């Protein structure tokens, strides 16, 4: 019986391990996920990208993935296992996999690696990211138009540059419409905890917030917003199902085209180290349909989206001040990517003290 239990436990542990058809002559493209592929947010978006890749190049490649891989030492083992099993290209899809990916990439020079949202590269290690903040800017403008109280709520996860960038971009967008607009931020200190995210949403709504946005992974805040009759934005995936009358739009990560492009490069023998940071214009980031808003707001959002795509509008363009009142960008000047990727300060107007 002890053996049976052990077998059961092992089964549970490897349930996440699944492989598609295994023809030996096909190139193997592998993915490491931090969450479950049905999380309704971040990881699901990556898995949809993988499925798209399979659909496009399925006759030449096969894919494999590991889900629910914790960040830390376990990640190293998982990535190494994939590298040993004959993967030609491995995508590691969470910021926290950075050091593990760097380490295994050095160990397997013949395997190509791509790490999402990180900043360390190597001869066989590329990075890729998406300019999520472009979508946040549009959300900010919509929020400023929709909100009656002039204050939006932002459920944040961890104070890393990626998240701070989003908060700043949202407020800059909102203030381009209403210079008095306010933003309240609650740090949940988690990516994934439906209950806590819902509590954070309640805390914000109880204090006068009437538009809600989030940088956490579950649809719980959207549900609370629906229950309380306010509007909200979805994150990473289209969350319209959780709030058919509530979602204004959502930032939808669309990794498929990138995965196809890079896999094709590998097949053609043209893969090289790049640091890709594409945005709305490249289609790596799309906006879910603009819903539950008046036509003029929708028109504004669409116009802004077009301007960002054409390059006419860059969200981080001066005149902008930092939260402490010091000058950051002069009128007309745009921020360089380096500052954005290391962003550790708020712009003027955020009603919160940034955790350091």
């Amino acid at each position, binding site marked *: *019986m*002890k053996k049976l*239990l052990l077998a*059961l*436990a092992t*089964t*549970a*542990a490897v*349930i996440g391990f699944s492989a598609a058809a295994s023809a030996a002559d096909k190139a193997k493209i592998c993915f490491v996920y931090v*969450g*479950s592929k*049905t*999380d*309704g947010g971040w990881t699901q978006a990556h898995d949809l990208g993988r499925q798209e890749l399979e659909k496009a190049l399925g006759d030449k490649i096969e894919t494999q993935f590991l889900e629910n891989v914790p960040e830390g030492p376990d990640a190293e083992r998982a990535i190494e296992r994939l590298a040993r099993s004959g993967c030609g290209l491995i995508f590691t899809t969470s910021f926290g996999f950075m050091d593990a990916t760097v380490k295994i990439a050095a160990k397997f020079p013949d395997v190509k690696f791509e790490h999402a949202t990180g900043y360390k590269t190597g001869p066989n290690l590329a990075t890729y990211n998406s300019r999520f903040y472009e979508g946040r800017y549009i959300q900010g403008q919509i929020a400023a138009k929709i909100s009656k109280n002039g204050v939006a*709520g932002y459920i944040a996860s961890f*104070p890393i540059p990626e998240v701070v960038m989003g908060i700043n971009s949202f407020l800059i967008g909102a203030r381009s419409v209403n210079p008095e607009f306010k933003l*309240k*931020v*609650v*740090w*949940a*200190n*988690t990516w*994934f*905890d*439906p*209950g*806590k*995210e*819902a*509590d*954070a949403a*309640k*805390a*914000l709504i*109880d*204090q006068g*917030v009437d538009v809600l946005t989030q940088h956490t992974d*579950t*649809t*719980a805040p959207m*549900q*609370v917003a*629906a*229950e309380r009759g306010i509007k909200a934005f979805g994150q990473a995936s289209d969350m319209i*199902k*959780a*709030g058919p009358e509530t979602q204004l739009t959502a930032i939808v990560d669309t990794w498929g085209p990138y995965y196809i492009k890079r896999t094709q490069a590998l097949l053609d023998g043209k893969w090289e180290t790049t640091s890709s940071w594409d945005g709305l214009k490249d289609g790596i980031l799309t906006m879910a349909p603009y819903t539950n808003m008046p036509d003029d707001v929708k028109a504004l959002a669409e116009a802004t989206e077009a301007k960002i795509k054409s390059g006419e509008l860059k969200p981080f363009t001066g005149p902008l001040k930092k939260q402490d009142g010091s000058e950051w960008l002069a009128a007309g000047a745009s921020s360089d990517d380096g500052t954005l990727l290391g962003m550790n300060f708020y712009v003027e107007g955020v*009603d*919160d*003290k940034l*955790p*350091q």
Partner: protein
Amino acid sequence: MGIFEAILLTVITAATPLVLAAIGELVTERSGVLNLGVEGMMVMGAACAFIATQQTGSPYVGILAGIASGALFSLLFGFLTLTLVTNQVATGLALTILGLGVSGMIGEAYVGQSGIKLPQIVFPVLSDIPFLGAILFRQDLIFYLSIALVAGVHWFLFRSRAGLKLRAVGDSHSSAHALGVNVIRTRYLAVMFGGACAGLAGAQLSLVYTPQWAENMSAGRGWIALALVVFASWRPWRIVAGGYLFGAVSISQLYAQAFGIGIPSQFLSALPYLATIVVLILISHNRRTTLINTPAALGKSFVPDR
């Protein structure tokens, strides 16, 4: 609705699953069995409650499914530890891993669906009392059950004959056995009660707290419930005090952040745990009462010498 009232309502929702899972585990531990599988039973309860609700359209069927799945799942633990005498700690941990895996598998088709929220039961007249009415008499069934269960467990453990026997089993299984108490049967029932309560706590998560199913949605609450039992030094009403204290501190830090009081959020997030440590120090100050309340045979396996 005042802000204080709003905070209290949020606290009640956050504390109820902790109180439920902890009161069940308290009974299990009082019988001398340490079941570390609370997290697994809870998440199974959440999944089964949600699935049953979506299938039948009735959250009350969901509640029953949550309770039943928790109890059945704990039966597996009972069979392994009580009948086959496996190590309780290892088996409990395995139960948690298994629960997280199985619930993720059976719930996969239900991810992203919006569930049906358990309706409130409004007591006429009482609910019109200013302030208290909205907080105490406009809640859902599971909240009322949580309070009733604590009262019931208190009465059972300290006022009933069966409760006395259960505590005897937990303190010295050999003596209880010698007196003719059926140790294994008592422990089976206690384990299943713990499982049923954890399943009900899971149902609260997927039917009240956030009416949806997401893999791993218990997010560590089972472990907090386990800690609460120690925190409460195995006394039922202290579970309520501990659960609501923990809930109050963790919720008010979110409200404080939204208010913008300018205290670093990492410190605020650590507050519930700091508060727990402070209370534990205060409680352990009196070693004798702690010893009296701790089940002496906790975690020890029993093999009848027939």
